[in-house]
């Protein structure tokens, strides 16, 4: 086509449409059932690999290294901030009235972690947190 192009504004159209199902209803899966039922009772449910002993939070049906089925366990390890960031602007560059602080919360020496919004307190890597709301994402307060 290389040689035949027009540039006139009104001879180049665009066509607006969507590519979206109305809605998605995701099941949380076998491990998710254990995790979310635990969350309702303010518990953090992980899963432990019978072969290598790693504990995954949130619970995963299988160990990513040994690839064997995990056993579900309640995790009581201390939650802490593995990393954090503060969102000041959205994608279009509009400044947020109140900056939003996001953190990845890990639990003691378990594997994995859960995303959280930090509602109050001075964030830094390694700081311990208290979970205020048990949902995804968690709402936490820096101790």
């Amino acid at each position, binding site marked *: *086509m290389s040689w*035949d192009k027009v540039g006139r504004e009104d001879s180049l*159209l665009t*066509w607006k449409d*969507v590519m979206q199902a109305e*809605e*998605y209803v995701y099941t*949380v899966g*076998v491990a998710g059932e254990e995790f979310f039922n635990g969350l309702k009772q303010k518990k953090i449910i992980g899963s432990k690999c019978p072969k290598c002993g790693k504990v995954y939070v949130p619970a995963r049906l299988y160990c990513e290294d040994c690839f064997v089925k995990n056993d579900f366990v309640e995790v009581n390890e201390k939650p802490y901030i593995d990393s954090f960031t503060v969102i000041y602007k959205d994608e279009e560059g509009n400044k947020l009235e109140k900056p939003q602080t996001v953190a990845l919360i890990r639990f003691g020496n378990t594997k994995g972690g859960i995303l959280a919004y930090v509602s109050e307190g001075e964030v830094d890597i390694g700081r311990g947190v208290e979970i205020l709301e048990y949902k995804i994402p968690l709402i936490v307060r820096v101790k």
Partner: protein
Amino acid sequence: MSETPSGTPLKEEDLKKVNTVVYKPKAEYAYSAGQAQSKFLLGLKEKKIIGRKCNKCGRVYVPPRMYCDDCFRPTDEWVEVKDEGIVETVVASFISWTRERMEKPEIVGVIRLFPSSDRDWVFPGLFHRICADFEDVKNMSLFGKKVKAVWRENRVGSIDDIECFEVVK
């Protein structure tokens, strides 16, 4: 072949008994029509079906294309094709795109547009609605019938500017 197949089947009503996450996707686009499809849509507004011809192999593309995929070279010229053709295939749909039942079936098919002849293995074809009733689809009498486009009164430059293709008596 291992013995116990894995997987936990669920019936529709079981969904209420398990944890689920509901999500509304947002995926909106302004597709660039580009050179060829812009010309095609503008043509429809003028009650014209525009194609584009490759002079090397003589093929006429409808909807038009700026390149011939067989010769791999730019196509050469815009060609207005008749809004008439032969029914290649036709079906009657009793379900909508979201699978709901429809009492009155929607008749759609592929129309091989003139200038091509019925010996052409490759031809300018248009996928569109055909105004006919279910009986003519069922007894396959529509195959090979000559049809002509029925244009809507107010056209906006869309494939929908053609209401359907009607059998020419």
